[in-house]
């Protein structure tokens, strides 16, 4: 029994290792493009360390030679003669020039290392990020509905940046530590085996300590981040309900709550500080201990004539050169863990199935669209939800007809129209376009036949022209202008200083809600669609302009199917048929006058609006 369990965990661990390896193999594939420069960079780094260790060697040689010359008891004259004319001066000058030569070579190689290794890591980052975006643009809405947008955003930004660290710093530090430590330890061993062991004694502790501290900091920073969000959240809650808090005289209570979180933050931060405050002193202590041992043990060896004072100087420098590589080892392991975790998340996004693409095996229909839409007992649940957002929807929309959907917020109207361009596929039932199931249509063909104006107007931060021509990048200027005219936007645009080249969004002007909606309508019109879907797209437009736009649409889209969602009676009352939707079901349908006569939901809605309208118009 116990054995079984053990076996099970073992095979689990094994499988986990196996997938880790698979992940890693995939990740390393990104290297192949830059194999040359990465290898070159590793070579440069190794060479730079090779030259680096000549610095202490040369210093030791100089000191030894000076000692020998000094012990020959020759009498030296002035400083000037020693430095520039004596034999000793020649030796000193030669050694020093050699030293400067190696130092410069070391520097140049270090430069070359960064230029190859780190630059390659940025290029790999470029490739990975392109791949992630390619994938993201193709993922179905289902993915976006079941993952928070903040999470997806992190995949393409922070996670990619962390994976880069694997190709950059992690690789560089690892190679650096191995080659530098390798060379130095060899040189130390050549000088004296025993002193080497003594000098290296504190260093493993340094690595282990750095690993522990950086790991602790990583973990603890998450906790602190969380507490930080709590403070911000509390401030947000209080500041946005300030009227209420003042009205109920609760300021002191809010202050107490805030101070509690604030104090919690202080305490957590202090704990992190305590660990952080250990780092530098401990580093200092361990390196200092190493130097101390060298002086002590080395000093005794000098007295015994085993080594020279030059060797002590040499060892002291070696130890100094080892400090960062050894400490970085611990840090690198943590960075590596984080990059791999990020890669795993990226990889799972990259391998996400794109299930809404055109069915490859069936003959995809590409013929022109007439605009007859039929829902056959359609039901729909959002991913991760047990409740039906739509249930038992059956309706038939004749080509060229004008259909309106009404109902409260959250009743399922938007969900219903989202199914037509296959932003989502129904969970139950079937939707047909011109008598052919949607899944058999070529997806691009289907979507290009639909002019969809979503509820939340989304414009990209580029020029107005580019936004209108979003669906048809090849559209000529006069076509863009015509679409703007039909959406009653042209006058507004001509008022802008840069006309159609005006930037909108973050880096440009802010359009009013109505202007945005009309831009989105122009964008849809320019596509010359067979089916027009307006999802509450005229809510921020005044009634007069709305009438004008609707009339235009009617004229230009005669013979085309129009589906309009609206809360305004004035918008929907002329529709051929109105569907009242409540909790995912159609509960009333008919023309305006039929529904008014019924005196049910639609009638209630009508009445309320008449009152409000009158109030506005007093």
């Amino acid at each position: 029994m116990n054995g079984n369990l053990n076996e099970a965990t073992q095979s689990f661990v094994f499988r986990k290792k196996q997938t880790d390896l698979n992940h890693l193999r995939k990740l390393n594939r990104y290297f192949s493009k830059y194999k040359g420069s990465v290898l070159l960079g590793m070579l440069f780094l190794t060479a730079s360390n090779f030259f680096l260790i000549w610095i202490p060697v040369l210093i030791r040689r100089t000191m030894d030679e000076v000692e020998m010359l000094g012990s020959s008891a020759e009498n030296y004259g002035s400083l000037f003669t020693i430095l520039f004319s004596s034999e000793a001066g020649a030796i000193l000058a030669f050694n020093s020039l050699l030293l400067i030569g190696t130092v410069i070579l070391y520097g140049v190689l270090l430069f070359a290392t960064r230029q190859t290794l780190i630059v390659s890591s940025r290029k790999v980052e470029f490739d990975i990020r392109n791949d992630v975006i390619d994938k993201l643009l193709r993922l179905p809405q289902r993915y976006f509905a079941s993952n928070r947008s903040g999470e997806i955003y992190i995949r393409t930004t922070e996670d990619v940046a962390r994976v880069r660290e694997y190709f950059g710093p992690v690789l560089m530090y690892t190679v650096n530590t191995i080659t530098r430590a390798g060379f130095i330890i060899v040189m130390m061993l050549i000088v004296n085996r025993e002193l080497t062991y003594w000098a290296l004694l504190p260093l493993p502790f340094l690595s282990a300590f750095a690993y522990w501290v950086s790991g602790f900091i990583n973990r603890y920073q998450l906790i602190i981040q969380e507490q930080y969000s709590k403070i911000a959240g509390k401030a947000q809650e209080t500041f946005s309900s300030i009227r209420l808090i003042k009205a109920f005289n609760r300021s002191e209570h809010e202050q107490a709550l805030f101070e509690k979180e604030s104090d919690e933050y202080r305490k957590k931060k202090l704990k992190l500080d305590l660990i952080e405050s250990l780092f530098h002193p401990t580093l200092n202590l361990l390196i200092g201990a190493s130097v101390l041992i060298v002086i002590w043990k080395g000093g005794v060896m000098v007295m015994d004539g085993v080594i020279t004072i030059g060797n002590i100087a040499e060892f002291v420098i070696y130890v100094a050169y080892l400090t960062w590589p050894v400490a970085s080892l611990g840090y690198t392991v943590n960075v590596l863990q984080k990059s791999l975790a990020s890669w795993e998340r990226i990889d799972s996004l990259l391998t996400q199935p794109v299930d809404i693409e055109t069915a490859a095996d069936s003959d995809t229909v590409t013929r022109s669209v007439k605009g007859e839409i039929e829902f056959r007992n359609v039901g729909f649940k959002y991913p991760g939800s047990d409740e039906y957002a739509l249930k038992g929807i059956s309706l038939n929309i004749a080509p060229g007809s004008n259909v309106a959907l009404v109902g409260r917020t959250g009743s399922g109207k938007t969900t219903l129209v989202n199914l037509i361009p296959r932003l989502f596929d129904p969970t139950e039932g079937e939707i047909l376009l011109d008598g052919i199931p949607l899944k058999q249509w070529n997806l691009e063909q289907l979507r290009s036949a639909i002019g969809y104006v979503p509820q939340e107007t989304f414009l990209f931060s580029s020029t107005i022209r580019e936004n209108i021509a979003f669906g048809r990048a090849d559209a000529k200027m006069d076509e863009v202008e015509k679409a703007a005219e039909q959406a009653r936007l042209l006058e507004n645009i001509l008022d802008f200083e840069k006309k159609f080249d005006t930037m909108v969004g973050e880096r440009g002007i802010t359009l009013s809600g109505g202007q945005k909606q009309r831009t989105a309508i122009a964008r849809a019109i320019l596509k010359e669609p067979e089916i027009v879907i307006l999802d509450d797209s005229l809510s921020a437009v005044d009634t007069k302009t709305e009438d004008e736009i609707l009339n235009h649409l009617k004229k230009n889209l005669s013979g085309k199917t129009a589906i309009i969602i609206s809360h305004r009676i004035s918008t929907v009352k002329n529709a051929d048929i109105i569907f009242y939707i409540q909790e995912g079901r159609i509960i009333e349908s008919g023309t305006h006058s039929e529904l008014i006569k019924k005196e049910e939901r639609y009638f209630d809605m009508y009445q309320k609006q008449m009152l409000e309208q009158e109030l506005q118009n007093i």
Partner: protein
Amino acid sequence: MSRDSQNEAADSVLIRRLYHFFEPYKYWALLAVILTLSAAFLGTIRPKLTQIAVDDHIATGDVEGLTWIVILLGLALVGEFIILIFNTYITRWFGQGVLFKLRNAVFEKIQSLHVQFFDKNPIGRLITRTTSDIEALSELLSDGVVNMIGDLFRIFFILYFMLMMSWELTLISILVLPVLFYSTFWFKSRVRVAFLHVRDQIARLNSFIQEHINGISVVQLFNREETEKQKFRSINQDHTDAHVKTIFYFSIFWPIVEVLASLAMALVVWYGGARALMDQVTFGVLLAFIQYVRQFFNPIRGLSEKYNTLQSALASSERIFNVLDTKNEVYEAALPVKPKKIRGEVEFQNVSFRYNADQEMILNDVSFTAEPGELLAIVGATGSGKTTLINLMMRFYDIHEGRIMLDGTDVRDYSLRDLRKNFGLVLQDNALFSGTVMDNITLGNPEISREEVIQAAREVEADRFIRRLPGKYDYVLRERGDSLSMGQRQLICFVRAMVYDPKILILDEATSSVDSETEELVSRACERMMRGRTSIVIAHRLSTIQGADKILVMHKGLIRETGSHKELVRRKDGIYRKLYELQYKEQAVITG
């Protein structure tokens, strides 16, 4: 951020004001400086000790002497270790203490400010003041200043020990410093520009990604995947290029620092070697100098980095003090009237109001009285000034013309607390906090007992649905009460207003559609609440309006009609009459 010399005077004021928060810790700070001084001494004396070890003991074969020096070295090392840890910890401790106080002070100040301040400043900005602006001071306060002092001490001690051993070698070893300063300066200026560029590119990349995640359905609906992909490629390329440029500067700068440090060592060995041949410099001194040269570089680099920290900290503290200096425009009465029993009479006398002198009037010469126990309904379109009436009587804003009286006393003569506790406010947006239902009702007031809450909930019939929640009154609401229906949220707000047993009830009736069952419940609850209270209702439902004792019809800041339902209906060409007729005419036509 360009901060030049003319700001220096302002900077010194800022520093003095920051010091005010620092004051309670000043003895600790003094201790920290002393500890820093000792740590700097213990850290820099070690090479000097190695010099003594080499020259006086190793060279003479004095094993016992060497042992003693090694013990001294060890003591210095451990001493520095302990002092550094202790010192870092206390500086962070008082640094966090100052931040804690500062953060609370900013929060308290913002909370106390007049409501108009919140209208003018986006919430996001206010949150930044209480969080990230404070955080920007963290580095400066926790170890920035102390480390700067420590760096200076270190430089001083190193120079002292070096000069003590050999002034010539000291000069030789600091020969490279001008080059180091120059290259640091060069690097800083280049890298700053390059970093700004990188930051722009990151922002561009991130906003592209953000935008395309948000607008993904538009991209797909318009078949634009391929084009957007190409667009991203070029943005991504710019981003990579910007990074590669900074890599270039770093790959020049770090080798230069390394080369300079080694160069200084080479110079010391060359010159020192010659001096050693003349027996003027010992090997111990050479060894000590090799160590000092390396030690010397760190504090210099450290100091140049701290300067940036100081700059950004000052910029943040300027923003923080701006908030702390904001004047509260709604202030307490100097000698507040102590109210006896409040009857609940609200009177507006010729009140005019606008937010700013250059703006349009929001209220124009408004006068009316709500008698104790009366139900006053206010009707009007959005923007007609209905909500402003409420804001004024609770002194969220103060008026400049006219008077507002509560029981015949000017509202400005009461203390804010005494004034506001008479009002029970139910706002349209049904604001709930994250926390339990209980907390949301009592708002953390310990004087309200559980029984009182349950009693109040029964009264407005909210008790039934609360009991059905998992955990009942201890059910934890998610942010803003998302998990409840609009009607339920409104009922909780009703209970909240009820437990405070106000004399005057203010309802901003929600237009939001609640299902008909809850709507009835809400209407019934409203009726109960109004019993025995003065009620001022911004009405959206005709049923409320009809039952009102007095109806104000507002339009563009003016009271156009006042009277009871009966009076107003009788008035020919009246606005109210028109509204009323409209409603019933429609019904008549359809039913008839």
